[in-house]
């Protein structure tokens, strides 16, 4: 069993990283008090932007086009999320409906643009990110084999962003203000915090990180934009709730999903796993999540003002 684990670990990590960064984006939005079920659509925007930029630049800069693509996805994601922010924060719209709108518009708009710009709704990139084995660290017994062989540079970027986010959220003034806006925006306002501004920043961060998540899918395991994120955004949302809106919790939850999905995907080809019926493996992550949510609902750490538009006059 251990051998099987080692065998699938690098690929599980590859699958986990986009989920992790997208869920982390959701955390910034939801901790500021704005529900963001538009993560799926924001990922699609990131996938499209990165694929298009890489497709355009790779004839000229084959090696570095990938990084331009990732950066462009971050920018496009944050700009696109402004739509959600404007509807929810400035216009006090229903946040769930706005999120659904984001999901619907993203898939249709990107496919339309892709067809008109490149002539095909699917954009294929030639140069994706290559995997590296880190020289010295990969020699460490156990850990080296698991964490430092066959890794993508984006994995380390995302883990760094996770650490940084954790620090920002709990150790800086901005983090305190962000959390205050999600818990009790009126109290935050009376302390002189601009609730609208903080929430705008929260939503834009979620757009930027979800866009990055989508782009990472393109440059690592998929290699082709096809107008959909196959439900990864919703899975990230589930991981956010499962992880109780905390960075460490999200890391654990997404990693759980990553391992479980990978095991389900590759079970057919690994004799040790093939004895378990595929349907059990494929549904287990979702069933376990349901149970976990039911059991933990009593202690749910949901931000108290989540989903409520901020109305200054209301008390």
């Amino acid at each position: 069993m251990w051998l099987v684990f080692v065998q699938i670990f690098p690929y599980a990590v590859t699958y986990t990283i986009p989920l992790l960064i997208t869920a982390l984006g959701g955390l910034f939005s939801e901790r500021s008090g704005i529900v963001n079920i538009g993560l799926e659509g924001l990922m699609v925007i990131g996938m499209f932007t990165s694929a298009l930029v890489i497709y355009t630049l790779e004839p000229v800069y084959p090696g570095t086009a990938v990084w331009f693509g990732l950066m462009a996805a971050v920018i496009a994601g944050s700009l696109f999320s402004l739509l959600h922010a404007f509807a929810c924060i400035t216009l006090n719209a229903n946040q769930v409906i706005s999120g659904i709108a984001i999901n619907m518009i993203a898939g249709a708009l990107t496919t339309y643009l892709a067809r008109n710009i490149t002539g095909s709704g699917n954009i294929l990139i030639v140069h994706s990110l290559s995997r590296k084995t880190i020289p010295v660290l990969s020699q460490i017994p156990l850990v080296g084999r698991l964490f430092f062989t066959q890794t993508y540079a984006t994995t380390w970027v995302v883990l760094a962003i996770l650490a940084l986010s954790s620090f920002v959220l709990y150790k800086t003034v901005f983090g305190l203000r962000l959390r205050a806006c999600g818990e009790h925006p009126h109290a935050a306002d009376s302390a002189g915090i601009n609730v609208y501004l903080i929430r705008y920043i929260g939503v834009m961060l979620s757009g930027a990180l979800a866009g990055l998540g989508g782009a990472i899918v393109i440059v690592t395991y998929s290699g082709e934009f096809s107008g959909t994120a196959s439900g990864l955004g919703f899975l990230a949302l589930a991981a956010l709730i499962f992880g109780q809106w905390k960075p460490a919790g999200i890391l654990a939850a997404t990693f759980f999903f990553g391992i479980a999905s990978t095991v389900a995907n590759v079970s057919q080809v690994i004799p040790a796993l093939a004895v378990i019926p595929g349907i059990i493996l494929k549904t287990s992550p979702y069933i376990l999540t349901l149970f976990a949510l039911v059991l933990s609902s009593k202690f749910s750490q949901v931000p108290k003002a989540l989903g409520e538009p901020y109305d200054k006059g209301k008390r």
Partner: protein
Amino acid sequence: MFKKGLLFMLAFVLVASMAVGCTSRTNTGGNGDGKSEDSLKVGMVTDAGTIDDKSFNQGTWEGVVKAGNEFGLETRYLKPVGTTEAHYITEIGNLVDAGYKFIVCPGFKFETAIFQAQERYPDAKFVLIDGYPHAGDWAPVVAANTVSIFFAEHESGFLAGLATALELQEGEVGFIGGMEIPPVQKFNWGFQQGLLYASENFGTNVTVKAENVIYQGTFDNVAAGQQLAAQMYDKGVKAIFAAAGGVGVGSINEAKARAKDGDDVWIVGVDVDQYAEGIYEGNKSIILTSAMKQIDQAAYDMIKAEKEGVFPGGEILLFTAANDGIGIPKENPNLSADVMAKVAEAFNMIKNGTLVISDVQGDLIK
């Protein structure tokens, strides 16, 4: 009050946007003035995946567009929001209502939908690729306004298997299929027969293990395609025959990543010549060869037949090596001239009947 009105508005906008989202684009025939007198309009409903899947849907659509340009016909495709019978019938109905009386449906999964549509719309004509209409009981009912087209996937798979074995000479190979449905299974069985034929007649030692023959279960799980291919390559598999639509996209991507690192890994493409999709550097591609079906030709031929008034309604047509309906690409930069010659020889033997490929499982794997 205001809120209620808003809700209605929203519901309306959502419904409207969905309707718009479903109807994709219209392609009016290329030769502007060439509007034909009887103004035949040709429609297509896509199967799982997109119109640009560089595979099944795209192949069919290219045939439709080619015929449309040549005969000055209006063409249009619709993409169902789901892949159930009800979704398919809805879009077929939409096409008929819009005056598209010649409808091409690529995919085994359209069988029961066409069974209903051929009776409901007797004045429309249907082309069903990879299946025959039935009521769910597998008893073929091909009405006079429907033609059903099958391909000899086993022959195509055989040629690809033979080419793979001859080029690699020794080593292990694998197979990743999409859903476990007849067209995909026949590719698999044919591929295995090709490997066996090569070892019996040319002394190659290319084998396939039972654990490396799998059906992923979908045509769109890219992540699974990548992970499955990675596992097989890690176990020492040198080439994978990926007959799996979007799942194959993930497998191709994994092979590209490994080839860039200098590994000796290959993918055998499916349906159309996938060489361009496997390019990882300059002109080098990880696509060894592709097991092709001339889907575009089939769609084109049927439209042409309709224009000439010889639509073979009620028939089940078979595209095989005998009528050049299947084969491997003419250009295979990754195959040597010797291999190409041997494959061409086998192709001719299948064509004149001296070599028969079985389209049933027998004692083959899965």
